[in-house]
């Protein structure tokens, strides 16, 4: 479980992105973390992975303080940021360097995912387009086979076909012992993947709801998103 309790964080002392913010992610399932641009979604993901430290409050992953960046905690956690640079080395060498940190790393999952995305396995990471870079890194993230997988705006930079492939690889790479958190403002790209939707707006959690399939019409998450943001 990931527990964020009374967290205050700002990149500068005067501008606070989060103030006295609390939220919990239970184990298992695909979470959609929705919110407008600049409402602290990415900041939350960085706090969970210990890349940022809360100025007040606590962030705990399975009871361990995330900011302590314990090796055991980090071995069970992978984040795909919205933007990143990859070194100009072969994928093979990159995986070789990364693997020791992730005990459950699965080369089989990596190959399957790359095949699904129609990407060759013998690529140089320095020679990839933005979309290709995204695909390769998402595959590495799924192959790392961590308990927690955090994806920040994963469908940005993907064309329509690749978005559809993205959904397939996430469903195929998901298992009951995994928790995937997808932060996005592109609700349509991921809505049918979600078990749970969380809508945040600055300091507040506007909605934290499990999506149970009723016999009624499906919940229109995009509509819910807009309604929740406009009538607060």
């Amino acid at each position, binding site marked *: 479980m990931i527990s964020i309790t009374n967290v205050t964080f700002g990149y500068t002392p005067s501008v606070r992105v989060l103030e006295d913010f609390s939220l919990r992610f239970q184990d298992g399932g695909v979470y959609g973390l929705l919110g407008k641009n600049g409402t602290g979604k990415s900041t939350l993901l960085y706090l969970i992975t210990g890349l940022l430290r809360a100025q007040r409050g606590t962030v705990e992953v399975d009871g361990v303080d995330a900011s302590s960046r314990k090796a055991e905690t980090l071995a069970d956690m992978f984040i795909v940021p919205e933007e990143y640079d990859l070194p100009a080395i072969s994928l093979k060498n990159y995986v070789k360097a990364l693997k020791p940190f992730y005990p459950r790393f699965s080369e089989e999952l990596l190959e399957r995912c790359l095949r699904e995305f129609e990407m060759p396995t013998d690529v140089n990471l320095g020679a990839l387009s933005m979309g290709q870079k995204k695909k390769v890194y998402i595959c590495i993230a799924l192959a790392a086979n961590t308990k927690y997988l955090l994806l920040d705006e994963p469908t940005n930079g993907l064309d329509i076909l690749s978005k559809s492939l993205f959904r*397939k690889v996430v*469903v*195929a790479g998901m298992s009951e012992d995994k928790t995937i958190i997808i932060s996005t403002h592109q609700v349509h790209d991921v809505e*049918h993947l979600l078990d749970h939707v969380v809508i945040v707006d600055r300091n507040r959690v506007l909605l934290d709801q499990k999506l149970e399939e009723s016999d009624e*019409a*499906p919940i229109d998450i995009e509509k819910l998103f807009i309604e929740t943001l406009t009538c607060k």
Partner: protein
Amino acid sequence: MDFKNQKAIYLQIAEHVMDEILSGKYPVDAKLPSVREYAAEVEVNVNTVSRSFEWLQNQNIVVTRRGLGNFVALGAVEAIEALRKEEFFQEQLPDLFQSMQSIGITMDEVVNQYHKYNNK
């Protein structure tokens, strides 16, 4: 797969499976993809597809064989036809009757059109 907004997603997926059974993609006694494989195919959460398969089992369209997976049940085609027939009488026909009444179309006119349609 495109989803409509009026009907639960798990039921739309179940309809899709039924279409595939009727079209012969999965004939009677054929093995169906696993819930996870099917979920990846239609790009939907595993739990949703799991519910679709449960529903299909309750309708005697799909049977689970322990350790082997899901199969198209014997009598699945008849079960689907019966379901669709019931849906036609319960949902589509009342809509048609309502349209007829509001426009003022008699049963005789409809019967006439029906014969014309069949003789085409």
